[in-house]
């Protein structure tokens, strides 16, 4: 695989605001790559730098090995699907899709053939003569996709393309986008603030905040081994148990808090005395009666009290006051009344988890 888009030490400043702060990324050819982060994290600016709508203050961007400094947007081999779709309201669907080909001076017959092909690809083959105002949100989204793909760009940039759709449609389109991407086989760079969307669709994800890439990795890696507290907190739900490092044995770290010691794993070496937190996902926890707990099974065990129970159908969500003073959530799968014990508010419980599931993170 070769690099499709490469960013080298790219910084973008708007006046005093640093929107993108010294980012280096290599996006492989044919990859589904997501830029994920909260609003204002710099993900859209990064996309706009690649598209050519903004020029970097410092640093270099290359597309298919060619540096694109000073190359205007209209000469870059990339196409964009905009968050607002940006369909031309005065043109029909067919004219919208044909726009890029006409700009490239493609022969009229060929334009017609490729427009048909692109509209078939997004299942909008019968909508040629409609105006954008006569389309629903989902249909506009498909046309915007067809208008970009018809030019056969080397890289497709997508700026929160599903952001305006309702949940059900979004789920369907996620699968469809992924399918289209594998069909056409081009690089997708996908900007989203929806972590579930990014995890479902991406080959790799760059989690961004404050203009920095906080972590770069596959879906599983980012969820299971978050690099820092921001990533752990932003991706899914996470409990933090605050403590101090008392012992470090390679990646195995023992923390201590309120006289309770507990172990987890860390990605970097930590010295004793460092303040750190153990991050543990709510679904990785098991709850047992306080007096029935097996404390010799190699799992971390902590005492706590049920502070609240929320029934959410698939799971029971327990809020637990731990003996360390931290408040945590546990999700227990609802296997039915016969198999799942439901704890009551105020009940004393033991919370257990496997030490490998606890990630020790510093600030």
């Amino acid at each position: 695989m070769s690099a499709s888009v490469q960013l080298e030490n790219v910084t973008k400043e708007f006046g005093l605001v640093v929107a993108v702060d010294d980012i280096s990324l290599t996006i492989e050819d044919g990859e589904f790559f997501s830029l994920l982060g909260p609003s204002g994290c710099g993900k859209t600016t990064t996309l706009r730098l690649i598209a050519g709508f903004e020029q970097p203050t410092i640093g270099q961007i290359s597309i298919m090995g060619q540096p694109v400094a000073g190359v205007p947007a209209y000469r870059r081999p990339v196409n964009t699907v905009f968050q607002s779709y940006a369909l031309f309201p005065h043109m029909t669907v067919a004219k919208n899709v044909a726009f890029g080909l006409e700009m490239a001076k493609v022969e009229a017959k060929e334009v017609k053939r490729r427009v048909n092909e692109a509209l078939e690809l997004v299942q909008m083959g019968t909508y040629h003569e409609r105006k954008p105002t006569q389309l629903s949100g989902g249909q506009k989204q498909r046309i915007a996709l067809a208008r970009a793909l018809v030019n056969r760009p080397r890289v497709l940039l997508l700026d929160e393309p599903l952001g305006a759709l309702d949940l059900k449609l979004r789920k369907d389109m996620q699968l469809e986008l992924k399918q289209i991407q594998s069909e056409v086989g081009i690089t997708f760079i996908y900007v989203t603030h929806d972590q579930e969307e990014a995890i479902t669709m991406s080959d790799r994800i760059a989690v961004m905040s404050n203009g920095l890439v906080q972590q770069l990795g596959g879906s599983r890696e980012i969820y299971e081994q978050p690099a820092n507290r921001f990533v752990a907190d932003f991706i899914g739900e996470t409990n933090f148990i605050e403590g101090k490092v008392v012992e470090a044995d390679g990646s195995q770290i023992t923390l201590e808090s309120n006289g309770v010691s507990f172990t987890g794993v860390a990605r970097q070496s930590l010295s004793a005395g460092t303040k750190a937190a153990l991050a543990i996902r709510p679904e990785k926890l098991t709850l047992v009666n306080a007096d029935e707990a097996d404390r010799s099974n190699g799992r971390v065990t902590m005492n706590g009290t049920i502070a609240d129970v929320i029934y959410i159908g698939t799971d029971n969500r327990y809020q637990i006051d731990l003996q360390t003073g931290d408040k945590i959530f546990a999700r227990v799968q609802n296997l039915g009344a016969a198999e799942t014990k439901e704890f009551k508010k105020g009940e004393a419980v033991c919370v257990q988890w496997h030490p490998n599931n606890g990630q020790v993170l510093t600030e």
Partner: protein
Amino acid sequence: MTSAVSTPVRHKIRKSFNERVLTWLAVGIFIFLYLPIVILIIYSFNDSGRGAATVWSGFTFDWYLDVFQDQAIIGSLRVSLWVAFWSTIISTILGTLSAIAMERFRFWGKVTYDAILYLPIIIPDIVMALSTLLFFVVLGISLSRYTILVAHIAFNIAFVAIVVRARLADMDDSLEEAAADLGANPWETFRRVTLPLLFPGILSGALLAFTLSLDDFVITFFVAGPGSTTLPVRIYSMIRFGITPAINAVSTLLFLGSTLLVIISLVLQRRT
């Protein structure tokens, strides 16, 4: 159960009551606005001879024949149309370019330019008129139809710029980015996306400019040279010799002309 049935019914009654009040209010406003014009039009057919124009004395088309045979009126109509036409063309181009510059670019002195651009709308006509006259006098330019033209362009630019800029501000910026993204250079983007989308705004700006130019009295009165009397100035000078149905007839024609322009602009806007 009863409340579930009665609620929608009551809602319907209240809605229709509101509708009726609003309808009558609208009718009242229309009467207030248009009754004087209707009276003007009726009296333009008043067969009153040279006597009291305000007393109805029978129906006649004579005043219209008079108007079309009156070389002074036809001459000033020609001047009015000439000034309106050229000031519309020039101010529409300059006003549109100003609007685009103000909305799309950042440049030195933009805030000041912004304020100055809209000044002609706020400044009283009489001040505009005096200052424009003074300007021509100081520069030693003799008054003619060209001085009227320059004065009209000056105030029309502001109105065109406001109308076009409102349209631009409503336009999604990403449309132009999308065009660039699809390979259109700045000129193609302007020609194929920006301009077509702005067109209704430009057209209504142009029609506004044309109407304002045709209507203007105060500024024209000050900067008009000998032999370059516009229609409103002609009507004013005719009134000084007494109100005749001929004035009503000229005014009616002016009114019909403006109405026709507005209808054309509405039809064109609906089509785009």
